[in-house]
């Protein structure tokens, strides 16, 4: 190792390379591996077919989240295919001695919510899961990214995957965020500037005072959305905010081990003169509450703006026209005042306590618009309990909202939480692809504040009116 200045990303990546293959990928060691019911069964089947086992079951953690119902979780899952996936997860984890937080377990919830919540996610670690939003865990200064099922099988059987080292990008956002501008808006703003492929091939470090001042929940939202600009992942250097969040969590280091780890974590930052393959800087004051109008997360804009024309959009005229036709919008439309049929707050992007606090800050003392169907879905049972303890449950109930049980829910609509064809949903989730929230569904991605304002008024509304 040379003494030349290095980045946070280099420090973590290089310390996990077991072997470098000439003209090939690195054999990359994985500290922590999350699995869920949808992308793991074929990997376990692969182990069986090859007659090989799980190398380090203590490094893998399973939770059920993707296809689970968000009501009546105490009853058997009705959909036989979903029930079978859940059963396979239970059987496979039991067979190999892997920790499993299944449906009904008090620790159950969305994988990217429960990992950090329980102190499994720690700075300097390498973390993977068969889910592209694994980038969430980068908020702790970990290298975390989504993998395919073949790679899930690799991690199970050898605790390694084969990865070429990505290029490095730093995104700085400096200044002070305006009223009603949340971490979700910061992320949607960056994606709208970079497009959905603007960071493909890169691993991103987020820096600047906006991220330094951000809570861990906010940092998780930002890192979660890294994949939506094509980046494999995004990370933020750990600091006192990070250490305070981790301290005391059930599976976090304790005592002397804590002191030792903390000393290491404090070294995890980019050196002053380190260089990146790409560096971009934005100003916080340019960001307003965001909303998407198209069918990819890059098609977003400030809520007060009008839908831009095709030449400003990645993908050219064909993609643009196809997208707007699907959404039923036209160039130069304002989004303000557009009718909203559904509101979804939840997901690994915005399903944490801070998100429900924000949502409640607007709905408090008001009533849900009658024609709006709202799904309020906590990211985990722990979040659900916090919602009750903090009185948010009462605020929601008085305003006409029902609280559902944890899971991925309408973010990808694998369960019954599907937005009907043609209907508009303001959603705090991460993808507005065609049919993502149900066949024919039309998704407007936004922050919990924008979602709350829409739920109250029944149309797209600037949340700053309520703040």
């Amino acid at each position, binding site marked *: 190792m040379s003494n030349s200045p290095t980045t946070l990303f280099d420090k973590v990546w290089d310390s*996990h390379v*077991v072997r470098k*293959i000439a*003209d*090939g*990928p690195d*054999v990359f*060691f994985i*500290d922590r591996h999350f699995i869920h019911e949808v*992308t793991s*069964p*074929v990997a376990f*089947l*692969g182990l069986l077919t*090859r007659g*090989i086992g799980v*190398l*380090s079951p203590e490094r893998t953690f399973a939770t059920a989240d993707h*296809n689970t119902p968000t009501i009546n979780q105490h009853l058997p899952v009705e*959909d036989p*295919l979903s029930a*079978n*996936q859940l059963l396979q997860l239970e059987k496979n984890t039991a067979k190999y001695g892997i920790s499993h937080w299944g449906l009904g377990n008090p620790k159950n919830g969305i994988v990217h919510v429960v990992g950090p919540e329980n102190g499994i996610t720690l700075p300097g670690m390498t973390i993977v899961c*068969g*889910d*592209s939003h694994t980038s969430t865990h980068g908020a702790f200064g970990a290298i975390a990214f*989504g993998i*395919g*099922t*073949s*790679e899930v099988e*690799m991690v199970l*059987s*050898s*605790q*390694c*995957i*084969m990865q*070429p080292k990505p290029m490095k990008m730093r995104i700085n956002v400096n200044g002070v965020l305006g009223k009603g501008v949340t971490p979700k808006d910061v992320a949607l703003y960056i994606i709208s500037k970079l497009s*959905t*492929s603007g960071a*493909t091939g890169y691993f991103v470090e987020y820096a600047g005072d906006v991220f330094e001042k951000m809570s861990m929940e906010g940092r998780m939202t930002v890192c979660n959305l890294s*994949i939506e600009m*094509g980046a*494999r992942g995004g990370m933020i250097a750990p600091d006192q905010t990070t250490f305070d969040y981790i301290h005391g969590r059930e599976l976090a280091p304790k005592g002397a081990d804590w002191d030792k780890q903390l000393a290491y974590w404090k070294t995890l930052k980019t050196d002053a003169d380190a260089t990146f393959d790409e560096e971009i800087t934005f100003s916080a004051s340019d960001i307003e509450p965001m909303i998407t109008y198209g069918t*990819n997360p890059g098609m977003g804009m400030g809520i007060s703006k009008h839908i831009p024309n095709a030449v400003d959009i*990645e*993908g*050219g005229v*064909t*993609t643009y026209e*196809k997208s707007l036709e699907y959404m039923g919008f036209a160039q130069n439309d304002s989004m303000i005042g557009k009718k909203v049929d559904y509101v979804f707050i939840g997901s690994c992007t915005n399903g944490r306590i801070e998100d429900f606090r924000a949502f409640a800050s607007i709905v408090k003392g008001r009533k849900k618009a009658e024609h709006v169907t709202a799904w309020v879905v906590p990211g985990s049972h722990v979040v659900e309990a916090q919602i009750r303890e903090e009185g948010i449950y009462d605020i929601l109930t008085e305003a006409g909202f029902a609280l559902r049980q944890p899971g991925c829910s309408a973010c990808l609509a*694998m369960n019954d939480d599907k937005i009907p*064809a043609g209907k508009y949903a303001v959603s705090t989730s991460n*993808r507005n*692809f065609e*049919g*993502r929230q149900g*066949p*024919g569904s039309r998704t407007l991605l936004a922050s919990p504040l924008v979602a709350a304002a829409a739920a109250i008024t029944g149309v797209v509304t600037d949340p700053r009116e309520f703040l």
Partner: protein
Amino acid sequence: MAYDSFNVLKSSAVPLPIENVDTDQIIPARFLKATERTGFGDNLFRDWRYDKNDAPKADFVLNNPTYSGKILVGGKNFGSGSSREHAAWAIYDYGFRCVVSSFFADIFRGNAINVGVLPVQVSPEFLHEIFTAIEVDPKAEIEVSLPEQKITIVSTGAFENFAINGYKKNNLLNGFDDIDYLQAMKSEISAFAVNR
């Protein structure tokens, strides 16, 4: 595992000149409930291919008998979005062995190679040439040579070289996969793990 090795593929191609084809379009989430890796081809591009009554949409390219072949040619940023390997399985299961685009999303590219589908990245200009060749003659043959790392429009002889690292190339040529490689170095991995 269990994919056919890849050497030289000469085939007509199916054009999909749409950018940002995401994995939710390739295989919608509601079809991810299987616990085996086969059968996904039936639902490849499900919502573009079938209407809500499950009737084939005549204007979608996979329903157009004019176009066929083992090569799928897509617009820029193919495979963005979800990490679901099911997208690559669906493409393989349908019968494609190669996807050509001017740009691939990272996770999809890796998944494709791991299941025996060769992602070939070409310049935007050459991609345009391929689309034009197919437009002129829907049966126009494309030759993809992995040993030479070369893609050729047979009728015109126009070609471009493409990149793939030597390790992955060798895997595809021989039908090897990463798990074979990793199993062979388990003691080295276990020694590494001691300090982690």
